[in-house]
């Protein structure tokens, strides 16, 4: 028990912070209220510190996964915090400025921060998950707060619509993977992931176990916004306030990918054949469709947030290449380890996408509405040079333009895909990167090369300095991490090292189980 507790110290710290934040956010004195984001930040830093000291999780499939992943979660979390702080406070504090008394009953000021931290807690718990039930609860803890955050992020109807849509489709997704989990339990008689792996390795993968795995993976596709569970993405991203959209692009996606990694590890990657045939085929199709659909639909968007939503779908498709490639043999280097590539790319993607959303949040139309149309960012480099350059650098990085961070991340996916023999998929990835260049270039050209035109009169800087800082930090990371990427890549490689003791079902020859074996259960 105490060993398990030692693994979740960061989550415990975050949970304590959440409780404090919920109270201070509603405090009658404004000074205390305004200190709330700082408390969140302290909590996140403490969690990151605690995560570095986490011991290896003995007996799990990826023993060293926790420290690296939780640290990057906390770091991107800090960036997101800079972006999120002030989102709902603004209306309430404006009311107070107008002389209304602050009424904690009518305010959701504290909850907003609390839900953010809850969601991050859930994300970290997903990383620590060694059990199906734990994983389900953690995934839900990640998602449930985001439904509310979407809804309360603005006072407009579109946010409520987005929230409801997100909630119902999210419930569908959750039901789907819970169903899969149930089948996995039925097939193996245990909910422990290592136990499931052991069972698959000794008895082969029964057809119900395979079914359960496929259904669970499909359900989790909702979290990572992958085909065919991606339909909510553009509407929700557009309906939510830009900072919340940035969070949606990173937090549930990371949770989904970690869950997929842990689930796939139970069936294992065969040294030559990769994942078991059915799972490989499913993920292959999902990956190819996700990239292509995401990029093709992003091409025709005028709304920048919708474009980013579709690009978020496409990036999920890219990362699935790493999932299919798998971690290789224990001790394999970074370029072979697809899981390491995914972990590293999650960091890259989190930083880049936060940067772009930070720019969108840091400007607004003069009537107080969010900047969203591509015309709103036209000539941004002239009207607001810092923001404009952040947008240009982060978008170039998302495009995978060498030598920026996104390129290094994508190179990991390329090399793991090629060295695991999935060359067809790598070609699809390459073609998609080229398609994506079209709309990313449009964004870059609008911000940097076009003259401001009308947007000067319609767009103005929003009053939050922290969002600008978040953007500048993101762009700085995209450039500076190039020089200092080595420790991060090394961290990802260590984190994604499969435990040498892992029983590998895929190596176990009989993939087609004895039918009678199932009836016995």
């Amino acid at each position, binding site marked *: 028990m105490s060993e398990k507790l030692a693994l979740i110290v960061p989550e415990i710290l975050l949970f304590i912070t959440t409780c404090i934040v919920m109270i201070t956010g509603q405090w009658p004195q404004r000074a205390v209220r305004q200190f709330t984001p700082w408390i969140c930040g302290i909590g996140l830093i403490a969690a990151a510190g605690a995560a570095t000291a986490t011991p290896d999780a003995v007996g799990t499939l990826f023993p060293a996964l926790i420290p690296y992943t939780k640290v990057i979660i906390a770091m991107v979390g800090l960036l997101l915090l800079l972006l999120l702080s002030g989102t709902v406070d603004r209306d309430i504090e404006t009311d107070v400025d107008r002389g209304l008394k602050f009424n904690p009953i009518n305010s959701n000021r504290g909850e907003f921060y609390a839900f953010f931290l809850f969601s991050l807690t859930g994300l970290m718990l997903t990383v620590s998950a060694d059990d199906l039930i734990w994983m389900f609860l953690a995934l839900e803890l990640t998602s449930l707060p985001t439904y509310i955050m979407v809804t309360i992020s603005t006072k407009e109807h579109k946010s409520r619509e987005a929230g409801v849509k997100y909630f119902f489709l999210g419930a569908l997704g959750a039901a789907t993977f819970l169903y899969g989990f149930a089948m996995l339990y039925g097939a193996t008689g245990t909910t422990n992931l290592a136990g499931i792996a052991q069972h698959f390795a000794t008895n082969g993968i029964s057809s119900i176990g395979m079914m359960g795995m496929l259904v669970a993976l499909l359900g989790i596709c909702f979290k990572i916004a992958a085909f065919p569970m991606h339909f909510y993405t553009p509407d929700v991203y557009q309906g939510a306030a830009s900072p919340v959209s940035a969070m949606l692009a990173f937090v549930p996606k990371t949770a989904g990918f970690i869950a997929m990694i842990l689930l796939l590890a139970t069936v294992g990657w065969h040294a030559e054949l990769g994942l078991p045939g059915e799972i490989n085929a499913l993920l292959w199709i999902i990956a190819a469709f996700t990239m292509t659909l995401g990029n093709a639909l992003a091409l025709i968007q005028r709304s920048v947030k919708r474009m980013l939503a579709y690009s978020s779908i496409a990036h999920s498709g890219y990362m699935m290449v790493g999932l299919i490639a798998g971690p290789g043999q224990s001790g394999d280097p970074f370029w072979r380890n697809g899981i390491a590539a995914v972990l590293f790319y999650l960091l890259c993607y989190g930083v880049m996408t936060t940067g772009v959303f930070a720019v969108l949040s840091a400007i607004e139309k003069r009537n107080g509405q969010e900047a969203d149309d591509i015309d709103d960012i036209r000539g941004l480099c002239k009207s607001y040079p810092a923001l404009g350059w952040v947008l240009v650098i982060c978008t170039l990085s998302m495009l995978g333009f060498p*030598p920026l961070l996104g390129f290094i991340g994508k190179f990991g996916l390329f090399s793991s895909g090629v060295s695991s023999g999935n060359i067809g998929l790598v070609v699809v990835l*390459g073609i998609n990167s080229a398609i994506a260049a079209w709309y990313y270039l449009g964004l870059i*050209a609008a911000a940097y090369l076009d003259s401001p035109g009308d947007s000067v009169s319609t767009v103005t800087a929003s009053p939050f300095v922290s969002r600008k800082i978040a953007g500048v930090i993101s762009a700085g990371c995209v450039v500076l991490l190039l020089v200092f990427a*080595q420790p991060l890549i*090394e961290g990802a490689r260590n984190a994604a090292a499969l435990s040498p003791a892992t029983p590998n079902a895929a190596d176990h020859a009989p993939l087609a189980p004895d039918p009678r074996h199932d009836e016995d259960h």
Partner: protein
Amino acid sequence: MSMEVIQLGLLMDLPILAALLIAFVGKPKNAYKIALITSLITVLPMLGLLASFDWSHGDQYQFAWSLSWLPDLGLNLSIGVDSVAMLLIALSVLLGPIVVLASKRAIIENRKMYYAWLMVLQAAMVGVFASRDLLLFYIFFEFTLLPMFILIRVFGSTNRVAASMKFFLYTFTGSMMTLAGMVYVVYFVSTQTGVWTLDIATLTHHAGAMSLTEQTWVLAALLAGFAVKVPLFPFHTWLPLAHTEAPTAGSVILAGVLLKLGTYGIYRFAIPLAPNAFYEYAPAIAVLAIIGIIYAGLICWVQTDIKKLVAYSSVSHLGFCVLGLAALNVSGFSGSILYMLSHGLSTGGLFLMIGFMYERYHTRDMRQVAGLASKMPVWATFMVFFAMASVGLPGLNGFPSEVLCLISAFQSDAAWSAAGEPGAWGSTLGPWFAVFAGTGMVIAAMYLLYMVGKICFGPLVEPKDHGHHGDPIPKDLTAREITSLVPLTAGCLFFGLQPTILLDAIEKPVNATVNLVEHSVESMNASNEQTDFNIIAEGANP
């Protein structure tokens, strides 16, 4: 770090510094001066390098330096040059001041942006040739797209947005495939040697062990990027548009250096990394090159837009370059590399001349101007000179390289290999290839002479509305413009009269590459014969 390595680094660092200075410190009116001074200063370390380069060991990487960057990806910052790369670097650096000089009057708005990106482009071009690391090469290779995209998109003429997009997307798509192919080679070599390395020399040493099927796919992937860049028919459609819309300096750099990245890529990577596949498919590649030569030449003949005419002539000329590479022998490679160096001078010169004319008349339409020799004799002299150089007049730069490429196609025939001609071991092409390619020279003479005759000679015709908008009356070339043309002229003469100096300089690396292909093809043939023998032997003893 030796003195020479620092000089090589300066070739990249100085333009970057200048770009930062222009973008963040300088005033718009100083941008031109900073760019000009920097590009002139950059010539000094380049001359130093040319002097200290050991030409008798041109096949070895010299001024080598390496710094580990991302060990987990195998990425090193490793630079160094062999004689081919050294000469191409010299060409890129020399074009620097010329394009800056030529831009003074053409670029009036957004000068900071223009000169800053021009300097960045300058640094990236040197980086491409100086890389000894495959991924570093790729990074620089791709990076050249961005400055060029901006130069076309912001400073081009009417249709610039479409042209820049087409340019970027076409080349970017191709080079994603190139990246996949390169990664595959690296992976293959790592399975052979147990080490994940991006060092180009190591990769070329081991890549020949790939099976023919693997090599074919690798070749296809690499060519996807490089053939678009060259551009080889039928991937050439982006080039006329990009050339026509780009500002003069952009066209000069595009023709002078960026197109060579494609042929250089084929020479440096496609051939050594997939030697057997290249040997196998050389006739097909040569056919594409010849179609390009003839087809683009015929298109030139019917153009009325002079800039478009020169743009298509680039497609046609680069066909010779690829033909020489496809011949896979010493004269072919030498001719091709010579062509890479010399084509930039003459075509770059033509683009400059057209730019100067456009600044005066605001038209590039052949039907609106004629007989300019009487109005601008100096301009007309240079125009005729560069046109002749482009046609391939003996004594000027086009001639030796074109002739070498054609001869190589002849030599690359079974009859010649049997005769034991040095370097003519292969039998990829033959006389028919040379005959058809040779018609390209005739066509080139037709369209270029027709164009020159039309606009330089005959009765004077100027655009009808010319002078109505308060334009100053056109004067002949200014001292600044002549200064920018003199180095090109000198280069054309030098290349035409003393090609042997250059041929000697590149002899070693060319021989090494030919030997590599020869060795690889022979060992594959030998192993095939072995297999055949085994099959026969097994058939005999069931």
